[in-house]
């Protein structure tokens, strides 16, 4: 009863346009007024949910992406990708996807990708003669790679909420992220070829020169991953190392100035607080899920069907895909993670595997109409109608969903790098 009140009030407030965090708070308040749970718990849970030092990795990885965008590193990445794959059938569309893969290794979020890199990509593709809706769709679809290839803010969030190893989650995203890129490139090879002839093949010398010149930014993901795998630093420290690294690379190679620091800090505050405030205001919800024993009840249901694990994972995919069409990924992640992980544990699903599946599921929500966040950004940048972007994005869902189901039912694709590299535990 109280739980129904929580959800009705939450959805009601959310659809009235209230901030998601406030809607969650008001929903929790309704719950506590109707149940015998002491409402004072919110005073503790709100602040304690922000107590983990690992959460600091979120602003740090956001800041690293900001620095790369401001310092012009994004441009260099795009140019380098162009030398590599600009001549393949599908041309700049491949470049678009490959740059996102490179960028994903630096930035922890899809936001930084779409808003920073996306602007460069759409401009270049439009000038070369690609239809605007197609350019916008490639850009939106490829930005989904950002939270999958490490580092990833969503994985930090999932890891802190569940006590799952963040290095293991990061490594888990490696293969799915590359698969995503490759699957999209296959689609682009088939469909994108008809628009514009590809560019000329770059000489090996030109590629080599550019690779050397851009070696430092391109190496960022390896610096971060190696540091985590060999245990040179904790995830939080990895964030700060990424910031320092990005700062040095941008000041030496790009045109970063001291006066850029202030605005970058403001942008970082904005992006990370949007996430952290939702986490704080929804913290009570995690507490309720535990005390009401919701995961136990739900997993008993899946056990009853006789297909426990398989049915559960399928349900996770379907439910998250549906929720993702109208809710923000952070709020879905924060609200549903405690339930999903509790159920996963009861049904024997590896929490690292589940984390990567959940994050990929949520990222798809960025590009599913009617409320795909990335779709709105690219529509704005490309200056077209939303309906055209929406139509152009649909075919991209085929390679993405294919990869999603592949990693859902072949856990080894997610788990083998971490099992191989992080022994024991």
């Amino acid at each position, binding site marked *: 009863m109280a739980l129904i009140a929580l959800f009705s009030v939450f959805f009601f*407030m*959310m*659809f*009235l*346009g*209230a*901030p*998601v*965090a*406030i809607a969650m*708070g*008001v929903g929790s*308040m309704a719950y506590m007024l109707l149940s015998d749970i002491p*409402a*004072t718990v*919110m*005073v*503790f849970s*709100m*602040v304690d949910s*922000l*107590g983990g*030092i690992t*959460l*600091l990795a979120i*602003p*740090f990885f956001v*800041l690293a992406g900001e620095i790369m965008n401001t310092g012009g590193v994004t441009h260099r990445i795009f140019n380098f990708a162009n030398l590599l794959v600009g001549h393949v059938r599908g041309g700049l569309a491949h470049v678009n996807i490959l740059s996102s893969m490179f960028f994903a290794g630096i930035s922890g979020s899809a936001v930084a990708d779409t808003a920073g890199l996306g602007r460069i990509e759409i401009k270049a593709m439009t000038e070369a003669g690609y239809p605007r809706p197609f350019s916008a769709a490639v850009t939106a679809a490829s930005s989904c790679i950002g939270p999958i290839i490490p580092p990833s803010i969503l994985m930090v969030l999932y890891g802190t909420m569940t006590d799952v190893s963040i290095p293991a989650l990061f490594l888990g995203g490696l293969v799915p992220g590359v698969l995503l890129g490759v699957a999209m490139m296959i689609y682009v090879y088939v469909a994108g070829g008809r628009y514009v002839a590809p560019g000329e093949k770059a000489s090996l010398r030109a590629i080599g020169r550019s690779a050397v010149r851009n070696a430092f930014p391109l190496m960022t993901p390896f610096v971060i991953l190696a540091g985590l795998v060999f245990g040179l*630093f904790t995830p*939080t*420290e990895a*964030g*700060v*190392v990424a*910031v*320092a690294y990005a700062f040095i690379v941008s000041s030496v190679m790009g045109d970063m100035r001291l006066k850029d620091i*202030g605005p970058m*800090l*403001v942008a*970082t*505050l*904005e992006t*990370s*607080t*949007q996430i*952290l*405030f*939702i986490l*704080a205001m929804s913290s009570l919800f995690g507490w309720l899920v535990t005390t009401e024993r919701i995961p136990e009840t739900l997993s008993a249901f899946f056990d009853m069907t006789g297909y426990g694990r398989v049915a559960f994972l399928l349900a996770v995919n379907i439910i998250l895909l549906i929720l993702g069409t*109208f*809710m*923000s990924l*952070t*709020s879905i992640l924060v609200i549903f993670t405690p339930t999903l992980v509790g159920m996963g544990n009861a049904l024997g699903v590896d929490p690292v595997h589940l984390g990567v599946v959940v994050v990929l599921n949520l990222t798809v929500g960025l590009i599913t109409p*009617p*409320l795909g966040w990335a779709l709105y950004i690219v529509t704005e940048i490309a200056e077209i109608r939303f309906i055209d972007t929406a139509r152009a994005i649909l075919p991209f869902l085929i390679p993405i969903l294919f990869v999603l189901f592949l990693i859902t039912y072949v856990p080894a694709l997610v788990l083998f790098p971490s099992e191989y590299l992080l022994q024991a535990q």
Partner: protein
Amino acid sequence: MQTLDRILGRLHAIYLRVAQAILAALVLGVLTQVVFRYAFSRSILGLEELTKLGLIWLTFLAAAILHRNRKHISVSALYDVMSDGGKRLARAITSVATIALAVFLFVQMAEVWAFMMLKSPIYRIPDTWFRLAPLAAFVPIVLQEFVNLAMLARHQAAPGRR
């Protein structure tokens, strides 16, 4: 109400400076930790207490700023297609609910205030310093909502939009 709005504007400018400073300090603090460990094989005892305090205050200070600027994540699909009257009603409900939530929170805080006797082990930071942060966010948020309601009643656009 306009005076109140001006005061809130000034308060948020201060909040922004403080939040920026905290973020910069967090970056430098953790960076120093890494450097210390490799250069001097020493770690900074109690850094965790300070970063925890920093992250909590950063979040709630910035949350107040985002609230005023309407930058928090929200779902606007339904709101966007409402009639003008519907929009005004939705905004009014949101404001009232936000105020109710804040008051509810204040009451709960007052109720457990007596139990905040812990101190952090190294710097002996009182628990209340951590637990006060939501207050710093929700006091200006409530005042802002009163301003918004007043503007709404006078058929003016809500202030604070950038």
